């Protein structure tokens, strides 16, 4: 049990997919304009990660080595399609806001990366907890980045104005601002890591 909790926790800080492994940055940067979008993307990607990690851990012994990547991708793509259809049905607004980045979850490096690096080598239960931790870590990272960007770029949080009177810097809701925020956050994480080591 202790090991399982460790598997779960490592995804949140020590091997945070975004800040430490630097995986899955494309959707992170693209949808983090507002916290609401960030959480939506985090949950959608977490769902796909969970489903695919479990299935891949189950089928890892049947799949021939050479064609494993296409096989994994089909599994992932199936879950993405499920997520896409559910989003369309239950939250069309969010679906429109996330745009092409919903089908692009399929190529989110976190998911294939975890499939290749973890689920294809570990048991189903371990993979489940790995996926939960990674999904949560990804969502937290998204909340952090989108929070910073929403506050600085539009003076709001969750759509509520919190900085009245201050002119928000439009840059931060532009692509260039996303790159800047992630660069500085990665630097901060490095600084933090060095201090602890």
């Amino acid at each position, binding site marked *: 049990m202790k090991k399982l909790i460790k598997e779960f926790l490592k995804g949140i800080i020590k091997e945070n997919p975004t800040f430490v492994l630097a995986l899955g940055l494309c959707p992170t940067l*693209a949808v983090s304009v507002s916290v609401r979008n960030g959480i939506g993307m985090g949950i959608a990607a977490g769902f796909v990660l969970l489903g695919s990690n479990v299935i891949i851990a189950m089928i890892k012994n049947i799949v021939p080595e050479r064609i494993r990547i296409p096989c994994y991708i*089909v599994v992932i793509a199936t879950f993405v399609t499920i997520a896409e259809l559910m989003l369309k049905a239950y939250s069309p607004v969010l679906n429109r806001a996330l745009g092409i980045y919903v089908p692009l979850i399929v190529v989110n*490096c976190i998911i*294939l990366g975890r499939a290749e690096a973890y689920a294809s080598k570990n048991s189903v239960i371990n993979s489940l907890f790995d996926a939960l931790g990674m999904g949560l870590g990804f969502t937290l990272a998204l909340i952090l980045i989108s929070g910073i960007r929403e506050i600085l770029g539009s003076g709001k949080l969750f759509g509520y104005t919190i900085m009245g009177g201050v002119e928000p810097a439009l*840059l931060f809701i*532009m*692509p260039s601002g996303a790159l800047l925020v992630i*660069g500085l956050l990665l*630097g901060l994480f490095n600084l933090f890591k060095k201090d602890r080591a």
Partner: protein
Amino acid sequence: MNSAQFLAILISNVFIYIVILSRFLGLCPFIAISKETKPALAMSFAVTFVITASSIITWVIYRFMLAPLGMTYLRTVYFILVIAAFVQLVEMVIKKISPATYRFFGIYLPLITTNCAVLGVAVLNIDMFFVNDKAVPGSFSYSVFQGISVGLGYTLAMLLMSAIRERLDFCNVPKCLKDFPLAFIIASIMSLSFMGFNGFRF
């Protein structure tokens, strides 16, 4: 089909909306492989080739298979499968022809499949050049041309970035910002400067 359309696609994809800097597609290999120019160039040629080819393939699949059968909701599965198979093919060819290049790419070659730019362009083509699952006139050539131009934009960004990062080897960058963080900050300023082309029209 007219040449102004083509010019618009070319300019907007190569200069204004460079996929990496404005849509963040293909960011991972952009940051990871842009430390030196040579592999960066090889990578971007590979990406250009894959994007162009997959634009053709996915268009054909969508137009002649998914749309008539009403299975368009399955496009993600079909597209990624085709792209994955195609990349595997490219991988095998490179392994045969140039083992040195192959060794250099390491983990990133299989990851071309998960280069969001490839699937992203395929999906974008469908979103832009199909109206209610019907191909607009000239849709095929637009799609292919968009694939090529996105690849060119990718190559341009990759080339600039790798040259800059080679130069940074000689600089005493603060330790915590070395490599990835600085690469993002450079990309940010590059994206800022390319904003100069915003609102471009003839």
